[in-house]
């Protein structure tokens, strides 16, 4: 491909006029983006956003920005899902409305977005907001690193979005297997976008994980032993450890593929001594732990929500901790089950099948623990609890199909079919997404001071659950019938009805998402009615509920003293939930810094330049990063002091809210 000095491979052909639908998608992105920018400008909100949000190093605001990013990407990923469902519902002996090339971009971006730019940011957002509060800490260990992590993740997401407008996205699926993704078979920039987005966000994710690990090890409230941490913190710890060990696999696989594509090397090519099997091997050493990175924190959320709404202690805390750690370690011992059909020896396949089943044991025990937590409780069915109950029932079905897939001879039949697609959505939708929704509804009042509307929450719940079953149970059947995944069209008349049902299911999910949007609007409008600034609307057991909603910038004016599990619950039962001193010490907090957005911007520029072979721009990006680091090293004042008077004033206001609530209750 010819390439110019100034613009690399970038020409006007990169605009998406190859299909009206792609052009329409690009138009929605461009107009939507312009609309948001216009609205902010019209409201003159840029200074406010820059000062209070973009440059913040407050873990709570960073957490909220992660969640907002995730929700936006959820919409994008779900539009992709709807497009695929619509296509397959009509593409019986017909082309459908999407060309194969376009369909392939859609499933690739759907998978990539849902895993890396919806699931990960959602989790990291909730972890960011909640972990320091549950630990009784004033901040995370490395606030600046934290901000950079967010902006690098956003830069990766922006690269995926940019591919919709300028150029194309990968057609290689979320796994990007070579040699298909090598230059000889995928000459367009799609794969490069995919690699750059993953490498950039991978760095961000790793930085955040380091930050969580250090925070959890070093910043717990005085007296809090590891075995007195809330379970959510344990799952955040295990998940972060998995990130540290797993993401390098992705970086290496993606990096070597990039070397093949950019420098003509032969790691995974068909010729020149390349070996495609190595890619599968390295990718899945990352890929399998990745699904536990996504699901463990959701287990932590369920382990928080279920006891609260059962008004009872969590059953088997120790067992849950050990089971979580077992799962984390074992998740590195099973990756070969993703390529049982590559021709390995029966001994090898049987070994990895057995290892995979071992993971089912601690997972099954966890499920029992959750049921026993509800046993002899007083169950309240607020939406977080509804998501949790739907999770338990649905998740065990997915677990069962997972064990089926771990039996090599059964995998030979179901691999690469829609049975597999049904299985992992059966794990990730109830396991991860329902957990995130439970966490969203549960901690929303902590972050904003008011609750989400219950009625719309229940409607969303019903549409989601019904939609999930309708959308994915038919895929199990299709898998039995031998329907492969990733098909743009097919010629078997008896398959069509199942695809139609699946499309109806996806439509129901759409209604569910619609209800969630309405819920947010209604909740904000009716916020007076559910306002609870005192900070403990659910009767929570852990420390995040022992401070105001939303918590002050410094979280805790006085660090809590902890000597037991469920510290706040214990204090409430002892009749003294709040210990209020008569005078306050000043508190040091990190200053705002523009470093996060700068690094994010530079990473986006660098990624974009590399995708299009615009080398001078790439050099500019790298030089910018180096210059920023040097400039930062001269910054002398990185923290500021909140005076004791200011703290006193904030705290007294909160005390008044708490007293008002106590009086109202008595």
């Amino acid at each position: 491909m010819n390439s110019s000095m100034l613009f690399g491979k970038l020409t006007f052909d990169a605009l998406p006029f190859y299909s009206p639908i792609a052009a329409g998608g690009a138009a929605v992105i461009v107009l939507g983006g312009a609309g948001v920018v216009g609205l902010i400008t019209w409201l003159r909100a840029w200074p406010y956003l820059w000062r209070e949000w973009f440059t913040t190093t407050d873990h709570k605001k960073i957490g909220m920005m992660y969640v907002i990013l995730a929700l936006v990407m959820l919409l994008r990923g779900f539009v992709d899902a709807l497009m695929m469902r619509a296509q397959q519902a009509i593409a019986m002996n017909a082309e459908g409305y999407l060309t194969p090339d376009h369909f392939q971009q859609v499933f690739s971006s759907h998978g990539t977005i849902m895993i890396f730019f919806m699931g990960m940011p959602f989790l990291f957002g909730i972890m960011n907001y909640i972990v320091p509060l549950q630990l009784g800490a004033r901040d995370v260990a490395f606030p600046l690193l934290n901000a950079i992590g967010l902006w690098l993740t956003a830069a990766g997401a922006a690269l995926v979005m940019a591919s919709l407008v300028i150029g194309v996205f990968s057609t290689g699926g979320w796994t990007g297997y070579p040699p298909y993704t090598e230059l000889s078979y995928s000459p367009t920039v799609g794969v490069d976008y995919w690699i750059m987005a993953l490498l950039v966000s991978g760095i961000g994710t790793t930085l955040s994980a380091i930050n969580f690990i250090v925070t959890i090890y070093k910043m717990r409230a005085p007296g809090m032993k590891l075995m007195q941490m809330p379970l959510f913190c344990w799952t955040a710890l295990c998940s972060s450890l998995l990130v540290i060990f797993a993401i390098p696999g992705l970086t290496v696989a993606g990096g070597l593929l990039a070397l093949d594509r950019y420098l003509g090397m032969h790691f995974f090519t068909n010729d020149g001594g390349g070996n495609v099997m190595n890619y599968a091997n390295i990718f899945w050493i990352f890929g399998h732990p990745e699904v536990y990175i996504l699901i463990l924190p959701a287990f932590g959320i369920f382990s928080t929500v279920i006891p609260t709404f059962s008004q009872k202690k969590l059953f088997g805390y120790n067992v849950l901790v050990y089971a979580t750690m077992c799962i984390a370690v074992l998740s590195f011992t099973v990756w070969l089950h993703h390529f049982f059909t590559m021709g390995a020896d029966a001994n090898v396949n049987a070994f990895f099948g057995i290892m995979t089943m071992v993971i089912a044991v601690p997972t099954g025990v966890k499920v029992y623990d959750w049921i026993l937590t509800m046993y002899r409780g007083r169950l309240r069915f607020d939406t977080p609890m509804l998501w949790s109950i739907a999770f338990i029932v649905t998740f065990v079905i997915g677990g069962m199909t997972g064990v089926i897939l771990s039996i090599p001879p059964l995998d030979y039949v179901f691999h690469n079919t829609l049975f597999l697609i049904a299985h992992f959505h059966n794990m990730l939708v109830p396991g991860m997404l329902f957990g995130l929704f439970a966490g969203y509804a549960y901690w929303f009042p902590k972050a904003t001071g008011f609750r989400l509307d219950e009625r719309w929450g229940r409607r969303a719940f019903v549409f989601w659950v019904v939609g999930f079953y309708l959308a994915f149970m038919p895929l199990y059947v299709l898998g039995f019938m031998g329907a492969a995944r990733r098909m743009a069209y097919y010629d078997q008349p008896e398959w069509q009805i199942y695809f139609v049902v699946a499309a109806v299911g996806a439509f129901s999910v759409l209604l569910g998402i619609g209800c969630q949007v309405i819920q947010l609007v209604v909740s904000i409008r009716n916020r007076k009615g559910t306002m609870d600034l005192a900070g403990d609307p659910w009767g929570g057991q852990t420390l995040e509920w022992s401070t105001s909603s939303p918590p002050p910038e410094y979280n805790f004016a006085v660090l809590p003293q902890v000597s037991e599990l469920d510290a706040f619950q214990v204090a409430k039962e002892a009749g003294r939930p709040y210990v209020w001193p008569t005078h306050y010490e000043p508190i040091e907090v990190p200053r705002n810094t523009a470093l996060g957005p700068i690094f994010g911007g530079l990473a986006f520029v660098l990624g974009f330049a590399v995708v299009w072979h615009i080398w001078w721009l790439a050099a500019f990006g790298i030089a910018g990063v180096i210059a920023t680091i040097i400039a930062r090293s001269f910054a002398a004042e990185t923290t500021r002091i909140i005076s004791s008077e200011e703290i006193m004033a904030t705290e007294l206001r909160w005390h008044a809210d708490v007293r008002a609530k106590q009086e109202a209750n008595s």
Partner: protein
Amino acid sequence: MFKDTMLDPAGPVSAATRDLFFDSVGLMLIVVMPVIVLTALVVWRYRAGNVAARYTPHWGGSRIVELGLWFMPVLIVVMLWFVVWNRTHALDPYKPLASGQPPLVVQAVALDWQWLFIYPDENIASVNRLVFPVGRPVTIELTSDSVMNSLMIPALGGQIYAMAGMQTELNLMADRIGVYDGRNTMFNGDGFSAQVFTAEAVDVAAFQSFVAEARNAGEALDSASFETLATPTIAGPVRLYSSVENNLFHTIMASHGSMPHVAADASSTMHAEHNP
């Protein structure tokens, strides 16, 4: 609706796979059903409105119960281990199938986006159509002239990847005459959805006439005609070749390995029992 799938097996491999499926699902339901039922019961009984139900807010564990919880899952999983070990060996795709007759050897080459089948003993080849005698094992040796592919005939059994420069193997057998669907299940580009073929299990006489038909097809498959065939084609027609250049399958493999020994090594180290 499950005609010619694992649930309506047309051969010993798919029949054994179906049995394995029901055995393992049966075992798992022993733990899964109680969970679903228990959840429903507990949720109903301990709803906040039911003040008659016992309420023990401080009960957070019990040694015996916590240990007991591990018992059932461990038991089921250990039983499954034995199942996995035995059946993975019994259903190893490389394992020759028990039969009085020697297997028919077919060399399958994955192309963009068609399947080439070479019958080395008959010295013929066919495209997008695989014909074999019923009741006689078929040994399919696979490679790819392009990206990764995976060959599956759901009526007969499971799949195995086809990779350039390497050889993999799949042993199948039909015990019922019929025309079955075969396809590539591994996404490989624009023509993926149409990369299907028919797998025809026929009686011996029909197989002989298929061979004769191919011999009369007129066109020979040599390096030149292979090159034409291998150009990307979506939903290509069925083709027959009256003869095949000597060792073409290995020539194709070597053209990608560029080191022929790599190809041989790959399959032997990956699969100790197999001796190409």
